[in-house]
């Protein structure tokens, strides 16, 4: 008898009694999912769950978020500051005071000897907003170097630059709610199911309620491309040509929203003249999409009562990244699709708080989207902080991608890296490695002591992670959300907030500028800086309490706003952040400067994300239930190409570019075209040994996704040995 067994076996299911659920926001990508962490009766974290009441994720989480609470105790955490004279020596543990005194002294030495800008700071998109603001105060206000940037230059700089050029200011104008209103959506180089699964779910929910056409532009047959109504397998790096051609069709067929153009934009005539050179007959040979399809898509998009575009690294990480963004903005301005429900240009951001660093870190300017170039802004901030405005440089210094060549050139001698791992994440790793060797002094501040870049560090600051800290994130739809402190920092690690605050005391201006003691007090300070006539980045109505109550509030949310909802969209009134309030239509000319496949290097080398890993794997590589889905580097290669080269499925190959080589496992799949390989970028000593990373002229963002490689056979046993050696985690 199967059912009625008199003596049934006991049922044991892990039970995790939770004493208290604490509110946080996910610390991985920029979707901004709300997570509740369950603290058990012994004060330890026992579980976590998506917050069902949060508008962003509505209870859902992706694999990384679901397993995120395992981070706190993961392998390789730094629990003590480390110090050494030369990077070739062994690290010695030390006290915080000593590590900081020594570092401050070194910074001052370098600045005195080589000039203020000879010490550079490169931060991240992973910290909390209050920490970014504090870091900005420290770097801009106390250390005073102009070579200060965030690793957002590797991911979102082109979006920032494109937004600024088109709309006069950064800040994505749309929101996830637009999926529910749009009549046509176009995704450029954005693979939501892999990169932003929860945003994908919001899109899927909208499409299950009401089907609307989805057009996906991607050289690879991603899951999103597969689910699209129309997939445009574009030639890498030629998105501008496709968009120009679409604009040509729209304008020549009179499908544009002339009233909107006339009322709210500048530069239409120049745009019209430029795109005239990109008729579909000509464009098809460049972008690889046939003329009929270009016309079809252009008409579909222009005729939709509301149409929206999203994009991610497929646009940003190319030599025409900023132009690509501006051109997507052109498409939406010309069709009148900005600031209305379902009509928007929505960049899908990478890091959890890339927005926070853009808004408040002073990397590319001064806090609250203020510009170094504007005397009034310098004055405002200097007065607010209580320092001399002349202390500020009068224009922005080098970006991350220019700081490294400056190290190479001997102009920058010292570097402070905060939660970023350029030895893995920067293109052309062989060159980057040499640059690190040249540094006189390197501070690495990171959650993990085994992050690859610590190989070259002189001082290592162990940092707290995620809910070991407290503060805010801003997500891709401008929603400010809160991370509550849930547990104490691991070992003797400290919050980034504390590290910056304590470092400031070691500089002259640090004794002048007031550094609030808590993140919440810092947030209150930032609120004061966000108030101003016509400012979009206004958070003055927010407070920690309100944010938690609302589970995130979108800016602008001005003081005195009724209810707990910020503005879902920017520019709904057609007024932009430019001098005359009109958006700029920017004529984009395509210059083909990519390293393209040729006889010697016959394959495009494309790179991208896999869902189970985040960035350089420093966190997800430690979590078995994430890492097991791709524990070692691999590439996708078309089976026809593989057959020609005699490459077997699941065998090792060596990829060679003009920069270096990499050894990966071959995965044969028709997902990629015959002349392309795709490699996940997360692995150390892998794709970035190959990449060229030509820089976008506006954003200085590297074109990670376009370079050429060849494939060589490799001794399988040797390759396997190398693979194991390169996998410490």
């Amino acid at each position, binding site marked *: *008898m*199967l*059912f*009625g067994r008199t003596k*049934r*076996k*006991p*049922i*044991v*299911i*892990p*039970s995790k*009694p939770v004493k208290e*659920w604490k509110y946080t926001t996910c610390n991985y990508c920029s979707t901004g999912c709300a997570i*509740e962490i369950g603290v058990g*009766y012994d004060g330890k974290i026992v*579980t976590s*769950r*998506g*917050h*069902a*009441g949060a508008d962003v994720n509505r*209870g859902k*989480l*992706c*694999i990384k978020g*679901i397993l995120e609470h395992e981070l706190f105790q993961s392998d390789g955490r730094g629990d003590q500051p480390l110090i050494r004279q030369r990077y070739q020596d062994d690290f010695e543990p030390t006290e915080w005071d000593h590590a900081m005194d020594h570092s401050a002294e070194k910074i001052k030495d370098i600045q005195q000897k080589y000039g203020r800008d000879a010490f550079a700071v490169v931060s991240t998109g992973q910290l909390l907003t209050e920490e970014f603001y504090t870091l900005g105060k420290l770097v801009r206000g106390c250390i005073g170097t102009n070579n200060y940037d965030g690793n957002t230059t590797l991911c979102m700089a082109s979006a920032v630059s494109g937004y600024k050029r088109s709309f006069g200011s950064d800040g994505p104008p749309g929101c996830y709610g637009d999926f529910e209103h749009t009549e046509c959506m176009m995704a450029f180089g954005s693979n939501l*199911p*892999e990169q932003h*699964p929860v945003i*994908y*779910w919001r899109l*899927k929910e909208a499409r299950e309620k009401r089907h609307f056409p989805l057009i996906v532009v991607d050289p690879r*047959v991603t899951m999103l*491309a*597969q689910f699209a109504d129309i*997939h445009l397998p574009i030639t890498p790096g030629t998105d501008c040509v496709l968009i120009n051609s679409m604009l040509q069709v729209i304008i020549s067929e009179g499908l544009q929203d002339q009233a909107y153009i006339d009322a709210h934009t500048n530069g239409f005539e120049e745009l019209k003249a430029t795109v005239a050179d990109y008729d579909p007959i000509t464009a098809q040979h460049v972008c690889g999409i046939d003329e009929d399809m270009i016309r079809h898509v252009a008409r579909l998009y222009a005729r939709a009562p509301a149409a929206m575009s999203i994009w991610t690294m497929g646009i940003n990480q190319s030599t025409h990244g900023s132009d690509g963004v501006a051109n997507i903005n052109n498409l939406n301005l010309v069709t009148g699709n900005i600031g209305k429900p379902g009509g928007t240009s929505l960049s899908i951001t990478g890091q959890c708080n890339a927005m926070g660093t853009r808004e408040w870190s002073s990397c590319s300017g001064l806090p609250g989207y203020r510009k170094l170039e504007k005397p009034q802004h310098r004055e405002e901030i200097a007065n607010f902080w209580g320092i001399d405005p002349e202390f500020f440089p009068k224009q922005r210094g080098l970006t991350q991608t220019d700081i490294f060549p400056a190290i190479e050139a001997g102009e920058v001698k010292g570097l402070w890296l905060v939660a970023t791992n350029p030895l893995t994440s920067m293109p052309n790793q062989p060159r980057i490695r040499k640059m690190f060797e040249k540094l006189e002094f390197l501070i690495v501040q990171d959650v993990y002591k085994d992050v690859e870049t610590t190989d070259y560090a002189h001082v290592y600051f162990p940092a707290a992670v995620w809910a070991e800290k407290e503060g805010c994130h801003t997500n891709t739809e401008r929603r400010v959300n809160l991370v509550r402190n849930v547990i104490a920092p691991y070992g003797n690690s400290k919050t980034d907030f504390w590290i910056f605050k304590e470092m400031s005391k070691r500089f002259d201006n640090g004794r002048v500028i007031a550094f609030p003691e808590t993140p919440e007090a810092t947030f209150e300070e930032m609120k004061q800086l966000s108030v101003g006539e016509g400012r979009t980045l206004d958070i003055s109505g927010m407070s920690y309490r309100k944010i938690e109550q609302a589970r995130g509030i979108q800016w602008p949310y001005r003081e005195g706003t009724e209810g707990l909802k910020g503005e879902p969209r920017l520019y709904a009134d057609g007024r932009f952040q430019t001098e005359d309030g009109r958006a700029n239509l920017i004529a984009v000319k395509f210059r083909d400067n990519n390293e393209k496949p040729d006889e010697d290097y016959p394959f495009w080398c494309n790179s991208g994300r896999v*869902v189970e890993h985040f960035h350089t794997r420093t966190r997800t590589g430690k979590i*078995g*239930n994430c*890492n*097991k*889905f*791709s*524990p*070692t580097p*691999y590439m996708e290669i078309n089976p*026809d190409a593989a057959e020609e080269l005699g490459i077997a*499925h*699941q065998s090792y190959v060596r990829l060679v570019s003009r920069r270096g080589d990499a050894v990966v496992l071959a*995965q044969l*799949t*028709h997902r*990629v*075209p015959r002349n392309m390989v795709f490699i996940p970028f997360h692995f150390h000593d892998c794709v970035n040994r190959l990449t060229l990373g030509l820089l976008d002229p506006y954003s200085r963002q590297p074109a990670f996704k376009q370079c050429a490689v060849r494939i060589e056979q490799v001794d399988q046993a040797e390759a*396997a*040995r190398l693979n*194991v050696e390169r*996998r410490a*985690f």
Partner: protein
Amino acid sequence: MNDDVKQFQAIQQLESGDKPPCESVEHWEIRTEERPYAFLSDEEIAEENRYGQKIDLIELTEQQAPANRSLFINENPAVGANPNRNKQHAFFFTADNCIGCHACESACAEKNETPAHLSFRSVGYVEGGSYPDYQRMNISMACNHCDDPVCLKGCPTRAYTKHAEYGAVLQDPDTCFGCGYCTWVCPYNAPQLDPIMGQVSKCNMCVDRLEVGLKPACVSACVGNALDFGVVENIPQNREEAKVSIPGFPDPEITHPNIRFQQMKELPEEMKRTDSAPVKYHKDKHGDYKPRVDPKQGKAKHWNLTRLSSRENPLVLFTLLSQAAIGAFAFTFVGAQLNIPGLAEFAQTSLYVPLAALSLLMVGLGLFMSTTHLGKPLRFYRGFNNLRHSPVCREGLGIAGFMGFLSLHILLSLPANSLFAGYWQAVTGSAVSSLVDPVKLQTPAAVCGFLALLCAAAGLYYMMRCYRIPARPFWNHWQVATAFFGSSCSLGALVAMAVVIPTLAIAGAPVNQALTLLGALLCVGVAIELIGLYHHARDMSAAEHEGAASHYVQCTTFGRSYWLRNTLLGLCLLVSLALLTVEPNIWIMAAWGTVGLALVFCSLVGRALFYVLVIPTTMPGAFFWRNKGFEEHARDIGLAELPQVGVVPNLH
């Protein structure tokens, strides 16, 4: 609140100190502002499922299972408020929608705290077409809580229960002794054998969530809107079909699994797997996808003798040793009983009992080996707990019976044994015959001998039944019977020959008749095995199932070893037949010896092949996860030493 619940709360409070205040003994805490997608929402429920089985489990059990019975999850006596808790529930998978994002797997891992090398739910995929007309179909699969739970029936320890609550098939790791038989019979790879813990665990349907009206964790976590759950045969909102099969999914007729699919997108006619299994799925004229061989490793033939060694080595030895022992005893015992010239004389010699003892020793050794194969060998005694259903139990019982009666037979035959009698005399100073009359023991000894053979026959039969597994098509062929019976015959005859012929020769008795008879039995055994092998190879190469893929591996990866075994076995038969026709002399004896060695070699290689070749019907894997090829590679190169790779290293 009933008394059980109150008592439970009291105990909880006593035990816990600063533990949860048990104001509510709900099995699961529903999230604040939980969304509709997480709640079960079955309104109308059919009477019967498509196989004609009652969906109401109380009715199905003819009221034997009471309604409103507690599941005692974690000893909590609370009874869930779910109105449909006595209905058979099922997963619903919209294959068109799955994005392969692992949210279901990780939600399951988080909830059930499974280590990286295990997963109650796994996502794999099949893909087809040519760029850019390419499609990947991801498949998320866990336990299907089948109408006919073959795991439950196969489990010798009765660790499984199919509950009248939700129709959940649950397994108790504390009962399990880690034989892994459930992992063989399940067509879906649902039971997870943990080589580190030495036990199996599996999907528990999140019955704790179901009790409070929530869907399982994996379903609630799905961000592709692919996975759903509810009373079986109910089609969720916004879905229109409920198929029982998609490409890559095994024949639902094996177990009547409680899963339904929507898969409406047209797929390429050939869908391939990215894992190492040489299987692809081809669309037939009815639009169904059938497994075919995907010759991933080309056509070249290899030896790969070292790869013949596997986790199942103890079973290679167990089956061969026990079969040989049974044969050897059967021939000498029955030969003596039937007064067959040569064997009758042998039975009178002092070496008859040692041969029987050798048989006992061989079986004992085999059984010991098979016990070491268990994850928890000290729990071996649990192997008889499911005689009602499990062929493993019956096999064990048969073999144990054989050993028991064989021991009695030996004991009762001892007094008649001249060697033993001599020892007895030397040790005790009195004749053993003064204690018992050896003649009087003859009949009981014979009865025990026959009973031993009866048990052996049952043991052998169920040993064969153990491998007739629909989820393992390479095994599910009558060739298993010919292999096992053939080995029993040929190896049994060989063991008997090795003892009988020298004994007779030394005793100066004629050996011809015994040699001819045993030699003929050896030939019969080999011939039976060869006939089986021939048909097996023929059927497998023509088959439309994973057996064909196994046969492909047999002919390529192990092609040379396979060829050698076949040729040697054929030669054994031919040479033996030739030897039967000539007068025995010392050279002929040496030739028999050589045949014997060759036969042992063939048997070892053949049986090892039998175990390593089987490709189960389980779901396609991914490039790393659930890919046997990668797992093997990770073990070979040492990558598996990192626990976060999710592959258990070789355990020695």
